[in-house]
């Protein structure tokens, strides 16, 4: 178990290192001069030279990268050129709104997705199955920013039950969470349906039926835990994606989360902020990967020997 964990940790670190190098290279090829971005277009050459020295831009590329890495490891992601604030602090300040939205959206996706998936699998090859799978396909095919806009028209402008944007209490969470959750629910329903149909045909499930167990018990105790494993992987990674900010949905609902922050960073060519948000999201994905792997080993004893535990 420990050697497995160590292997995954090393791999996670390598991935993060690679990501940081990649984002650094992208930032480096940007034609815009950070010193000009900070001082303004009218700054005189001397001021620019001073700023370049302060930012370490006069050093060779590899030194700049190593410096960046060293600071990042100490939690210092640099200062935003435009907002002139600490990047790490900016991200932390936006995190609560993003977490609230991510948790609510994932709840919508899992509750609806599992309900649809289970109902479809239990009615396999019948009208209800087809209708549910058809509905899931419609959900998957809906562009998220269009769905958000439609919900905004219906819930915000016509019913007037929900605010038109911003993060202000539970009511403001409803529309954005539905916007994000519905599409994911479509994926989860299809994934769970396919796995559950397979599992329900297995011998041990038939044995459970033959023992005279109730339908609910067979489903909850025997079939669902196995069928839900692949869903767990996908949902874990999706959650990491949600936590690193959702640009489109946050744009529609004017949500003060990390997605909007990243969007502004890109538009202003605010390099430290772009690198910070990309690195932050990579970190979340690596952690989620690790967590999913561990939960998997814990839930499914069959993969323990293969994992070299």
């Amino acid at each position, binding site marked *: 178990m420990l050697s497995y964990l160590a292997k995954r940790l090393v791999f996670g670190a390598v*991935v993060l290192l*690679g990501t940081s190098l990649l984002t650094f290279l992208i930032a480096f090829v940007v034609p815009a001069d950070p010193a000009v971005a900070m001082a303004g277009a009218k700054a005189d050459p001397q001021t620019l030279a001073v700023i370049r020295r302060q930012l370490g831009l006069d050093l060779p590329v590899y030194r700049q990268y190593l410096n960046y890495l060293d600071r990042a490891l100490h939690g210092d992601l640099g200062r935003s050129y435009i907002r002139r604030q600490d990047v790490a602090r900016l991200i932390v300040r936006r995190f609560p709104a993003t977490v609230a939205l991510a948790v609510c959206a994932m709840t919508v996706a899992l509750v609806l997705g599992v309900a649809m998936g289970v109902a479809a699998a239990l009615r396999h090859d019948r009208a209800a199955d087809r209708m549910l799978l058809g509905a899931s396909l419609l959900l998957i*095919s809906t562009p*998220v920013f269009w769905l958000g*806009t439609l919900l*905004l028209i219906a819930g915000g402008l016509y019913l007037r039950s929900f605010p038109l944007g911003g993060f202000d209490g539970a009511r403001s969470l409803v529309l954005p969470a539905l916007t994000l959750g519905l599409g994911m629910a479509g994926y989860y329903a299809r994934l769970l349906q396919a796995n559950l149909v397979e599992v329900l045909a297995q011998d041990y499930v038939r044995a459970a039926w033959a023992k005279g167990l109730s339908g609910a018990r067979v489903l909850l105790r025997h079939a669902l835990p196995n069928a839900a494993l692949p869903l767990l992987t996908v949902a874990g990674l999706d959650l990491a994606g949600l936590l690193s900010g959702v*640009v489109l949905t946050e744009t529609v609902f004017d949500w003060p989360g990390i997605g909007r922050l990243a969007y502004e960073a890109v538009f202003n060519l605010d390099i430290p902020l*772009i690198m910070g948000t*990309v690195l932050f*999201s990579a970190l979340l994905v690596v952690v989620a990967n690790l967590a999913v792997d561990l939960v998997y080993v814990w839930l499914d004893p069959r993969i323990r020997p293969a994992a070299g535990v």
Partner: protein
Amino acid sequence: MTTERIGSMKIIGAAMVASLAIVALLAPWLAPHDPTAAVAATFGDPGRPSLAFPLGTDALGRDVLSRIIWGARISLSVGVAAMSLTLAVGGLIGLAAGFFGGMVDFVLMRFTDMMLTLPALLLAMALISVLRPGLLTILLVIGLVSWTQVARVVRAETLSVSQREFVVAARALGAGSARVAMRHVLPGVMPVIVVMAALGTSGTLLLDAGLSFLGLGVPPPTPSWGRMIEEATAYLRTAPWLATFPGLAIFYAVLGFNLLGYGFLAARR
């Protein structure tokens, strides 16, 4: 799944995609008005749907129906071209990793894993803003950020096809690596590539529409579905139809390719 249902999924999907392709090809003849010209008298307000303008006009007095019809050209060509790039890059990497195995596989797949941890939309946004928006940039960027899934699926399929008897036999007969890979393994992997092509196009269509919505798509005045929705957000209260129709077009296109892809996928099971 029953066979007739799989068949109907594919047929409906194919019909939807074909209808879009026809609209895109015949746009100059089908569109009732010039998509970029102000054809309605306007005072800065969108016009309601009417007989002359079935889907209304936007704030600049341009005909929405004509813009949606011309938008099919851009969306479909960006979607298909970006998907081809995605398939070429992902397919080659997946084929190489699965076919050669060992060190090649390890390095390629770790690189793929790394790319997977990068947020695709964010990366696309950053690259486009650096490289300047334009048709070619968008194609390249969408292709660059979305090949990872293709690579993984093609690798897995290559691994299983490589172990089949006809491939082993070809090797035993002394065929070279390149020949075995291209003549024997690739055709075996083809069905999976067809599925990925259909599902991949719905993915690239959505990504392109999302980028357009964020103002990073094909620059104006070229009509683009995503940008039309973005432009309509200022008029949600007074002209809700303005945001509704272009979204329906994206939804129709994505649904068509999804039906096609899932239809092929179900037929393989």
